[in-house]
């Protein structure tokens, strides 16, 4: 896993994203935030994160559509979906579309960090396998 992997946290609930980002930063994780899908896709290129934590329910381009764009543009980037719904349907659909995993909001910070580490490792493995090819 890279030493300083980057996370992009995408959620239209701005206060949630800001507080969670601050908690992750306090634990030494490099995080940026985006509050809608359009900005997330811009930051995918400019910020180049290893892992994207992505809310499913967002105005404009929804989470699943953003996921599809990410996997088409940068398949090595790993996506962890956050679903606010009681149903796991979106999470399962997201996995089918290439998400690394999904978590139900509100998330436990330790569980999220565990998933972020795993996903960053998977991103590195995918990058090095693409380099070899």
């Amino acid at each position, binding site marked *: 896993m890279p030493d300083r992997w980057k996370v992009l946290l995408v959620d239209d609930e701005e*206060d*949630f994203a800001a*507080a*969670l980002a601050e908690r992750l930063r306090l634990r030494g994780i490099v995080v940026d935030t985006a509050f809608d899908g359009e900005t997330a896709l811009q930051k995918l290129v400019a910020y180049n994160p290893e892992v994207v934590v992505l809310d499913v329910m967002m105005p404009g381009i929804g989470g699943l559509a953003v996921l599809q764009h990410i996997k088409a543009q940068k398949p090595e980037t790993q996506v962890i979906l956050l679903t*606010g719904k009681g149903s796991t349907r979106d999470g399962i659909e997201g996995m089918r579309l290439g998400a690394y995993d999904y978590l139900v909001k*509100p998330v436990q910070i330790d569980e999220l960090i565990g998933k972020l580490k795993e996903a960053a490792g998977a991103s590195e493995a995918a990058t090095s396998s693409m380099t070899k090819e």
Partner: protein
Amino acid sequence: MQQDELAFMARITAGMTHELRNVLAVIGESAGLMEDVLAMTGTDPSQSRERFGRITSQILQHVERGIRLTAGLNYFAHTPEKRAAMLDVNKLLEQFVVVTTWFGREKKVSIAARQNNGFPIVESDALKVQMLIFRTLEAVVSLAPAVRSIELSASTSEGGVSISMKLGGQSDDLSGWGSAIREGATWSRVEESAAAVGARVQIDGAGQRVELAFWPVRQNGTK
């Protein structure tokens, strides 16, 4: 309760519980952040005073938001008890805006209620009236994507009560949608809902206002 009424209640409830979950998620993360800061800075208040003040204020704002949402959800949950009731339309619109916050957010449209002078009261079915307003909103947002804001207000005139939806957005983009939509299935659902409560739906020529006109009016409880 009819199938379409159940579906409507389920849709609104699902949207509201999603909003409430977001509120709880913000409060949870903010409390967790305070815990983290406390663990890092120990008991020295000077290091964390400003940060704690900011986080506490955020928590209080979201508690207020949660209270508004639960009040709206409670009002909505009692709607099926008011099948032939005297409805305070101002109150109904005020709560309707709360229970459709999620919809506005999803569609990037600001939905607000403006309280006019007067006391528009009608005798009708609260659930069906809200279904009509919601279906009209849905239709407007889907058929006129340039709409960025919708202001709801109630007024009494010419022996009836009218709910007005004032649409905001680029006026050039809004004009013309009204005449194009009457053929579609989306609008026929609106008209079905209107017929169920004896209402009439009108769109102004410039496409910037929709009026739901209906019911015998009662001023201060008298005809």
